[in-house]
């Protein structure tokens, strides 16, 4: 798992990156509602036209964002196993026509693509700040902020744990492996809990009083 890729391109500099988070969040919401609620209301030929226009808009937005297409496409493709499974089962059982099969798959790809455009052009904490301005409860936002910060910590802990185990335990197998792994998860929880306590102390030392900047 490559955790460096979390909101990876969000700090680039492009016209889209410069837009206010509010505009982008609202824009994405409108797009998703149009894609998932409005387009399906149309009749078949119009649906195809709708999807085509939608895709064209996405391409234009992407071009103004300097986020590489290859990244957006490969991340969007993560949804394929699920879509293909569902769609395929429906097709085989005769529930879906070929057109429906394609339509559903394309819709699921496009919705992910849309969301990716938001997270690749807006740093996560900017999104949080905006949600907070719109009145999202403080507790929700604070837990989310802590979650985001501790995520990197946890990933670091996991990487370290894996290295440490590899270094001293080459050939774990079978039952022993399960024991080693549950032990690791438990220890991960305990250690990251203690790490989190210490990090919280470090935050306190630097004037953290409960609100993230």
């Amino acid at each position, binding site marked *: 798992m490559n955790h460096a890729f979390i909101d990876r391109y969000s700090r680039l500099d492009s016209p889209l990156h410069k837009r206010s988070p509010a505009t982008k969040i609202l824009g994405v919401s409108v797009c998703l509602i149009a894609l998932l609620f409005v387009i399906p209301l149309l009749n078949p030929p119009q649906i195809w036209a709708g999807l085509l226009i939608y895709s064209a808009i996405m391409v234009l937005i992407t071009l103004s964002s300097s986020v590489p297409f290859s990244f957006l496409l490969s991340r969007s493709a993560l949804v394929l196993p699920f879509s293909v499974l569902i769609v395929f089962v429906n097709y085989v059982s005769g529930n879906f026509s070929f057109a429906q099969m394609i339509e559903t798959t394309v819709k699921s790809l496009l919705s992910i693509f849309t969301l990716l455009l938001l997270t690749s052009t807006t740093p996560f904490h900017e999104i949080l700040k905006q949600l907070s301005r719109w009145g999202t409860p403080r507790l929700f936002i604070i837990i989310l902020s802590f979650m985001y910060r501790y995520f990197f910590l946890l990933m670091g802990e996991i990487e370290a744990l894996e290295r440490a185990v590899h270094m001293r335990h080459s050939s774990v197998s079978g039952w022993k492996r399960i024991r080693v792994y549950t032990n690791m998860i438990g220890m991960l929880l305990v250690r990251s809990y203690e790490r989190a306590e210490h990090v919280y102390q470090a*935050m306190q030392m630097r*004037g953290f009083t409960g609100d993230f900047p």
Partner: protein
Amino acid sequence: MSQLSVKGLSYTYSDGVPALKGLDFQLETGSRTALVGPNGAGKTSLLLAIAGLLQTQGEILINHAPLTAKNADSLREHMSFVFQNPDEMLFMPTVIEDVCFGLDTLGLDDKMALERGQAALSQVSLEGYEQRSAHHLSYGERRKVCIATALARRSDITLFDEPSRELDPYGRRNFIDLFHKMTGTMILATHDLELVLETCTQMILLDEGQIIKMGKPDEILGDVQLMESHKLEVPHSLTRHPHSH
């Protein structure tokens, strides 16, 4: 004027290990004090206590005001702490965000905070590291970022826990220069006894959670018997020129 005064300070960890056993001492405003003692002596615990991060017994007075759970937050505005483990201090996505974290609570606006942060980074020769993530640095580089966070705060009291660890000799020398340039009261816990001689005007020898001796660094560190009975060594520069002062 005494800036920090500690009376009957004790602390026992939740698993029953007594780390501090009734400490008493006073530090003047602007003094530079080294905290020396073998592994497990209680140095880190003492620093954590002074920062109000442990629920201790006894009394800690900062500028004559007792440190309590209530006012700890506001007293900490005047303190900085460089932890022994850099990984426990660095939690923001980028180096510059880490260095600037909390500067706003000191009343600085974003622009001023950024300037201070950048100045601090260049003081530890980490220009150009602003946008990297701290957990993707070498350990020595992480340590320097931690030192920069303290520099940027310009506090009345600064606590250093083993700051020279992992620094290369040039970085260590640079730290010594910075230390001399910094203002305020400073407490420095370390095993680097040469560093003590070069930076501090007084020292506290700690062992098993108790103060063994408080006094001038060269006198305490030069005492062969005292050193050996507490798992320490007379530093090189004192043995080569005995009684040169």
